[in-house]
């Protein structure tokens, strides 16, 4: 029977620890679906860029719009089931800042070829994942650093199969990371 404050404090601490684990696990589950979604978007985009290089710009714009709409729908679905908001207003603002920074260099300041452009966008967002991981959880740091490393290797060593390997490493890496996060 609970008769002393020490025992009561231990039970409260136990409750808080379990609740933290559940919240982290729920967050990883939602985030994993979004990471898998963007993995598929990335893989399709890279494969389509390989097949139709002249239409790559339009393909990526279309795919990015689909990805953003699907991500918003997933978030709304979770909210509808009573889950607290996993991402607040700072998340879309952070995405807008990343896109803005990327566009500034892609179409303004940078002198990138198609290959450098692909690596730039991939590593830019992986850098974002890694930094966000410092607050959200170690899985994001591993994902960001791991995929950025693979993409960099792809740039130097993949030769004419660059887009195919990018689909595999970047898209496939995101899908694999999302599946791994579901088990965490």
């Amino acid at each position, binding site marked *: 029977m609970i008769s002393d404050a020490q025992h009561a404090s231990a039970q409260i601490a136990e*409750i808080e620890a379990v*609740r933290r684990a*559940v919240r982290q*696990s729920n967050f990883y589950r939602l985030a994993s679906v979004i990471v898998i979604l963007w993995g598929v978007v990335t893989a399709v985009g890279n494969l389509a860029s390989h097949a139709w290089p002249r239409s790559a710009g339009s393909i990526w714009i279309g795919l990015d719009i689909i990805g953003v709409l699907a991500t918003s729908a997933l978030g709304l679905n979770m909210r509808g089931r*009573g889950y607290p908001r996993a991402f607040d207003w700072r998340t879309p603002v952070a995405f807008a800042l990343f896109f803005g920074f990327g566009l500034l260099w892609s179409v303004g300041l940078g002198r990138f070829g198609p290959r450098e452009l692909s690596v730039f966008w991939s590593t830019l967002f992986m850098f974002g994942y890694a930094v966000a991981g410092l607050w959200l959880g170690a899985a994001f740091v591993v994902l960001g650093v791991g995929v950025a490393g693979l993409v960099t290797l792809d740039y130097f060593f993949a030769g004419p199969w660059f887009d195919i390997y990018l689909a595999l490493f970047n898209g496939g890496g995101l899908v694999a990371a999302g599946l791994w996060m579901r088990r965490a």
Partner: protein
Amino acid sequence: MTTPDDTIHQPVRLRIMAALTALPARADGIDFSRLKKLTGATDGNLGAHIDTLVRARYVAVAKTFVGRRPRTTVVSTADGRRAFAAHVAFLRSVIDRSAE
């Protein structure tokens, strides 16, 4: 003055209720394997404690199939949420009394 809940204060059942009540009331519950990981209990031990909570009407169990694999999902009831909140209030009152 609140009183402790003898069903909930057992450590594994406390963890089960803490996990289930961390979800929104409309949520689908937690499946058995995830609950096992969260509580650190073995299959048999977890099953026995869930049975105790079901008899107290603090949780409900749903068995479904995902493909061919059976899936057991546990969800807290309104009674369970109330009892857990009352137990937490009791724990806090014990801590507060000792600080006075």
